[in-house]
């Protein structure tokens, strides 16, 4: 499965919104973590954490075929060290491309269920600054 150009563009815009055009390894690792956490929290709120995890795992299996560095990562959010190491081995451009592909695949898979437009809309909502501050709870979503 390859993500469509529309979802890839959406994922690329999302990355650019958070990271700009940085090639700094630590900044890439930080943004990857931020994006992962926001998607997990945001999409987890919309569709449930379990459903989000299932989608993410399916997306990661596909993404790893072309971006092997994702093998060692639990994907988006909890592995800044792994991302940092990957940048050192594969270079920032390759790692960013891998992360964009992963997000695009999440959108693609979600879009197959709820429609591509709605999926992009939700993912963009998750990555955007929340108009209402999210609650701090003891839920699984905020747990490390």
């Amino acid at each position, binding site marked *: 499965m390859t993500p469509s150009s529309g979802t890839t563009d959406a994922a690329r815009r999302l990355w650019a919104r958070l990271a700009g055009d940085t090639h700094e390894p630590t900044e890439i690792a930080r943004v990857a973590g931020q994006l992962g956490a926001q998607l997990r929290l945001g999409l*987890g*709120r*919309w*569709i*449930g*954490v*379990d*459903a989000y995890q299932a989608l993410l795992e399916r997306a990661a299996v596909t993404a790893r075929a072309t971006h092997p560095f994702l093998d060692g990562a639990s994907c988006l959010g909890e592995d800044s060290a792994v991302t940092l190491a990957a940048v050192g081995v594969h270079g920032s451009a390759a790692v960013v491309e891998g992360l964009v592909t992963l997000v695009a695949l999440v959108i693609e898979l979600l879009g197959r*269920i*709820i*429609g591509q*437009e*709605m999926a992009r*809309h*939700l993912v963009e*909502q998750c990555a955007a600054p929340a*108009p*209402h*501050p*999210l*609650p701090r*709870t*003891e*839920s*699984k979503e905020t747990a490390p």
Partner: protein
Amino acid sequence: MTRKPKAAPVTRTPASLELLDTGVPGLNDVLGGGLPALSFNLVAGGPGSGKTTLSLQILFATATPERPGLFITLLGETSLKLLRYQQLFDFFDPARIGSDIHILNLSEDALEGDLERLLLRVIAEVDRLHPQVVVVDSFRSLLRVQGTSAPVREIERFVQRLAMHLTTWEVTSFLIGEYPEAELRDPVFTIADGILWMTQEANRNSVVRQLQVVKARGMASKPGLHTLRIGRAGVQVFPRIPESSRSMHPRGNKRLSSGIPELDEMMGGGIPVGDSLVLAGPTGAGKTTFAMRFVAAGLEAGEAAVVAIFEEHPDAYLQRTKTEIDLSEAMTQDKLRVIYLRPLDLSVDETFDEIRSAVQAIGATRVVIDSISGFEMALAPAFRMDFRESLYRLIGALTELGVTVFSTVEVVAGREGPGLQLTGYQVSFLTDDILSQRYVEIEGLLRKALVVVKMRGSNHNREFRFYELTGSGVQIHEPLHDYDGIITGMPTRKLRRPPPAHPGLTDQEVLVFEMMTRSGPLSPETIARQTGLPPAEIMPILDRLIQLDHVSHTDAGYLATPRSRVR
């Protein structure tokens, strides 16, 4: 002794409730004006009855960016499915998702069974978003998850605390739950300000969804079961037609033309405005043609009309109608609306809603229902059981709108025996006027006959008259005076005795006189011989004929007078 003055009556200004527009067509009406703000409501019913769709539709209708709507899914329809399927409805605007519509999935929390944490999550979200309306779907599933691990009273306490929090947060809320009717005594029903009960019943090939307002604190809600339909636009509720007082419908002196002058004459000058008329006849008798003449007459007079049909598509229907005026043109100008209702799960309330909407939209004064038989077929089997009562409510509600209703009904031969077959529906109690068509066999030809059976409060013609359907409409001919037994369908020509040629004469006197008018002078013996009468009877006969100036006596014999011969 002076009487104490009566105490002045205490005047109380009833507190008014702020009402929210539900955005569900028909629901505000059923609720008594709208949804009370800050109310705590329960939407109960079986799977597939439309609970989630109804609640989400209300959420979209009431949400604003300042006061968004919050939909919390526990263990009912998962939010993924919710997003997948609910966006197919017109009311679901994806652009509003995340801004004024929020969907929160708490299924994991619900599955873990920590009600305290679940409550904290809900409270935190309500506190954060300050929503106008909150929907919790499906609250009822908590009970199943809890099962034996949590006592029922813990669930009750959870619901009570949730209700209290939602109310103090100034939120209008809905709990959705799949409840069997046996659990109506559940404490949550006591807590709730409003209870909407939704059902879905399959009967053969039809499905009927209904809604009942079991409870609506502070509201004069409409009692009874109201049908609802889930379509592309979402849920639409059809308020039950109230029992009407048909005597209330206005009856003035004004009459409407049927479009057939001879028929107007038969009816005593036309159809009284506001009447309900039924035209009953067998197939092919021209019921639709009569109905369309009625419509055309209205259009020619500048009125608007609504036609409800059930058996064929409007294009085909209009094509076979015979009127001088172009009905398609009238439709283009929105002076005529043809409503085509053919689902087999139709309700009377839905039909009324469709007709009323059309009547009000174009200001129609004439309504045609073509036909009552087709209408019955289009109804869900459950509604056919009390069809007469439903028809009574429908006709009553329509005439109360001030329109004149012209209904047709097909009479099936033999259904009511060989007599005057009217409708097969015993509709005389619900109609003001009845016309009856029937086939009659006259000299080997099948002819059509028409009679006015009933015109409430009017003098009308009671004669059967032949009619013909022509290229331009209907031609009504002279009354059928010469026939008896028309209502049997096989009339007989009346056998009339010719007037007596010689009034006042006995048969024997006529015999003698007739013979004498053909002869010259005759003797009594000759007369006796030629008539075969006894000779003794001849003289008395001749004396009487002379007395009446029919016969004279001459020298040559007895002779019929010249005046009698001319006659």
